[in-house]
């Protein structure tokens, strides 16, 4: 008989349960404190998921992976690692959303539902991370994505957001179709949807049809590569990211992406590891294409959200490098890169969200234009420094977490003796550094255009006084301190204390993982060890 081990799925139950609780409580209470209550509950839900992960990590360490629900759920270190990452993102998201709601003047009924959707989407991610069966994986993917589509469209005041949600939905449904077809063919070839059984069939060579299997792998990959936005299935990413509300882009680019990759790692590294020779060339080509296209396209963008979107495509390429190696070290490297990148992407887009807030009162068409980051170092020095740390980490400069992320994936391919891939990846990494350096130059070395500030804080005459040499933003720090009321207002709207605290945490994490990455790296390694 099927054993239902509810304890093992406690992290998913916590996330899902919190979502239901939030809906229920929110519909019963009419107090003005409801906003705060909902926010706190969501944050606690994220923490609860994390706590469940920590408790189970030790149990799994001592007793081994826990299978339940007729072996369709597998709680092992890999699942727990990813659920931990996703839960943390939920926690951080919950903390940062409030200022966004206030700014966009979204009314209460909607804000509650957004928290619920984030929790549900995270549940989907957790389901995917622990799936040991292709059907469950697909269901998890749908839960994850459906919530994400709605989040993308959730700013009902903006047509852009609606458009973005629509695009995301159409493309996502298309990708899901491929994914499902791939599952069907793999089932056709091996006679099972259970990952463990597929793997056994492949080992014993007793599968039905090689053509089916290859077709299945190909379609399955197409579906998932869409989800993780790897080239050539990436076209939707910049458009969707640009249109969707920034705080949710932060969530999508971190939690949703992590879930997509864990599905790849579970299936390729677990069930299909025997036919690695079949899928490795595909991943090889896709990873190079993603790195190259993402980087080159990011170089010519002028919208910061699009820059980050393309850079996320390039990062997807780097994560695929580790998967391509098809070794335990390779998967560990990818998982570690994922954890690091999730934090970087989340924090970077959160900064974009905060920055949007700072200028939303202004009559600029595109609040995310790179020019709006000019001289950020003088206007919001703290934000600028944090953004600089995050950007440098994305560029892979030591001593930041991003360096070890790139280091470990490249180390994995060097170990697998794919020197050309390693060299190409490093060269692209240097080109990619230019993307981030460009933003740094804009923020630190370019004086703020006074017109963007409404002429309030720095007048043109102040510039003309400083001889031929243009003033660097750092000297303007003092000038901006005695600014007028409007400036204070954006400061409050754009980045309130809680947001800054979250961003500081992200920056501290980035540096800490750059100086002493050992603990998290070991977690990632034991996660990779648990692949079948």
């Amino acid at each position: 008989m099927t054993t239902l081990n509810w304890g093992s799925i406690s992290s998913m139950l916590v996330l899902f349960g919190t979502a239901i609780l939030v809906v229920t409580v929110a519909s019963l209470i009419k107090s003005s404190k409801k906003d705060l209550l909902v926010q706190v509950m969501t944050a606690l839900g994220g923490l609860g998921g994390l706590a469940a992960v920590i408790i189970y990590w030790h149990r799994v360490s001592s007793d081994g992976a826990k299978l339940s629900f007729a072996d369709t759920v597998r709680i092992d270190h890999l699942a727990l690692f990813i659920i931990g990452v996703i839960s943390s993102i939920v926690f951080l998201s919950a903390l940062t959303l409030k200022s966004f709601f206030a700014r966009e003047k979204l009314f209460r009924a909607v804000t509650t539902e957004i928290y619920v959707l984030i929790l549900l989407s995270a549940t989907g991610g957790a389901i995917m991370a622990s799936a040991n069966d292709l059907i469950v994986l697909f269901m998890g993917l749908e839960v994850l994505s459906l919530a994400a589509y709605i989040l993308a469209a959730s700013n009902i005041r903006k047509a852009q957001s609606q458009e973005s949600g629509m695009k995301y939905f159409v493309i996502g449904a298309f990708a899901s179709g491929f994914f499902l077809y791939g599952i069907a063919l793999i089932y056709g070839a091996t006679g099972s949807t259970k990952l463990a059984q597929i793997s056994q069939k492949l080992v014993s060579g007793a599968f039905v049809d090689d053509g089916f299997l290859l077709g299945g792998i190909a379609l399955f990959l197409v579906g998932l590569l869409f989800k993780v936005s790897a080239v050539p299935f990436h076209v939707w990413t910049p458009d969707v990211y640009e249109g969707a509300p920034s705080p949710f882009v932060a969530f999508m680019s971190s939690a949703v992406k992590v879930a997509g990759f864990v599905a790849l790692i579970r299936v390729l590294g677990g069930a299909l590891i025997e036919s690695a020779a079949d899928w490795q060339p595909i991943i090889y080509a896709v990873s190079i294409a993603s790195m190259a296209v993402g980087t080159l396209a990011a170089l010519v963008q002028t919208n910061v959200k699009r820059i980050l979107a393309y850079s996320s495509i390039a990062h997807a390429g780097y994560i695929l490098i580790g998967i391509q190696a098809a070794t335990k070290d390779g998967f560990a490297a990818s998982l570690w890169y994922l954890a690091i990148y999730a934090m970087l992407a989340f924090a970077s887009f959160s900064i974009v969200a905060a920055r949007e807030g700072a200028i939303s009162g202004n009559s600029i068409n595109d609040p995310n234009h790179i020019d709006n980051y000019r001289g950020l170092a003088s206007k919001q020095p703290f934000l600028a420094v944090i953004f600089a740390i995050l950007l440098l980490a994305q560029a892979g400069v030591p001593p930041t977490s991003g360096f070890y992320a790139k280091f470990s994936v490249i180390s994995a391919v060097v170990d697998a003796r794919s020197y050309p891939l390693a060299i190409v990846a490093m060269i692209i990494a240097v080109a990619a550094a230019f993307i981030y350096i460009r933003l740094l130059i804009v923020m630190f070395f370019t004086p703020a255009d006074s017109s963007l500030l409404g002429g309030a804080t720095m007048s043109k005459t102040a510039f003309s006084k400083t001889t031929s040499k243009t003033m660097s933003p750092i000297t303007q720090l003092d000038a901006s301190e005695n600014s007028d009321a409007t400036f204070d207002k954006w400061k409050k709207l754009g980045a309130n204390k809680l947001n800054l605290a979250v961003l500081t945490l992200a920056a501290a994490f980035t540096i800490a993982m750059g100086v002493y990455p050992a603990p998290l790296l070991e977690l990632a390694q034991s996660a990779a060890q648990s692949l079948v």
Partner: protein
Amino acid sequence: MNQFLDDFGLSIMVFVPLITGLIIMLIPRAKEELIKQLALGSSLATLGWAILLTVRFDIDNASTLQFVVDTDWITAIGSRYIMGIDGLALPLILLTTLIVPLCIIYSFNHWPEPANPKSFLTLILILETGMLGTFVAQDLILFFVFFEVVLLPMYFMIGVWGGQNRRYASLKFFLYTLFGSALMLISFLALYFLADGTAAGLDVVNTFDMRALSDGATGAIARTSQLWIFAGMFLGFGVKVPIFPFHTWLPDAHTEAPTVGSVILAAVLLKLGTYGFVRIAIPILPEAASAWAPVIGVLAVIGIIYGALGCLAQKDLKRLIAFSSVAHMGFVMLGIATLTNIGITAAVFGMVAHGLITGMLFFLAGSIKERYHTLDMSKLGGLLTDAPRMGWVVAFCAMASLGLPGLAGFWGEFPVILASYSPAAILSESMFRTFMVIAAVGTVLAAGYLLWMLQKAAFGTAGGGSVDLTPGATPHNGDGDDHLPKANTAIKDTTKREWIAWAPLLVLILGLGVYPRLVHEVVEPATEKSLEINVGNIKYDCLELSPSSATDCFNEIRNRNG
């Protein structure tokens, strides 16, 4: 106490500046005095600590690593926290710890535009940690991290406090260096996975430990792989040096950087590249080094000539000094390419000497710019009459830079030329003798451009550009006039602050010139060890054999390992 020094001495020296930097970040910018004193205090303390370590350093065993720390760091990727210093690193560490406080003193109350001493000092201190860390690291990843840590503060220093083209220059600096180190990292990784120390009697298979790697753990690597790995390192270190085709970032960076930035760049940063060759590339991959040596030699002599000719074409004083750096680093690289004890010892000496002299020249350029508001040599002149003391300091440094015997520069050039007369036996003698001749021509050119610079900057009177300095004064041309040009009283002579910042450098330039043994004594044993090929406890002398028998010698090592 001694035990404490052995265990924590190096870590304290490396991280004190960084920690002070972080503390300074937390102090409000209004408390400028406190910030300045703290920064100066900590850099002096670091210098003091370095001197203490030097005193404790066992000079008789300069070839062995001392104050070694070896603990777990990132076990997951096989990297350990290993630090230690030997005779190769010691002079460079002293140079670094000396230059930094001098830079802080020089810029005291005198910050480059746009001021902001808080950020400026924080960057300098972070930079110091990066530089010192690079010199003490004995693990490839630790080395790489420090090597890259240096990049960012310098990038911001050029980008924020630089001149007109600072954005271009800082970007170029950053991307060039990053490109080099990217390929270097792949080489390190390849070394890690190919290394096997078991046959050499070492208890390691895959390792980033530089000690094990240079003790024979790389012996089994196939020749082609070695060549590729060396190529990656060559790019990484070569860009930093910079070797001839990769040098174009240097003049831009130097021209745009603030005075102190230029000084640190010239005095220490360039040495990170050459130090990498001496410490990592050659001891770890001697076979590949011998194969690449001719290439390095060719590029080095091209650099010498190209740098010298480049100098003669410059109008800007700082750009001229930057090109002279290219030439001087060419001598250092030529010394390294000979693969002989004399050559490499001279190269290390050359690094120190170049650090002192060129650092000093950049200080002077900064002071001249402050006084005349230009570095255009057609508008400069008359320093000897306007500010005689400073004029003589310029003359002294120019002499030192062109390699006048008795001053430090000489010992970085002459032995290099000597060494290329008889390079290691494995190398082609005729080829290196050709290099010798070209390098010798380079010294003549060096005399040419430095004297030309001296004439432009110090002799005569200021050209037409500086009207506001001497209103109404008619320009003199000094040469045939029977009366001496009148001093421009608007120009202040060397100030007390400048004297404090410069005196140690000037004394050392003279001191090392007169008594070079101070450096040789510690460097030579370490160099000798770095050229030895030890596998297990057996010493091979492949480098001292003719090319054909050297191949057999290397194959023998490989077979032993395989």
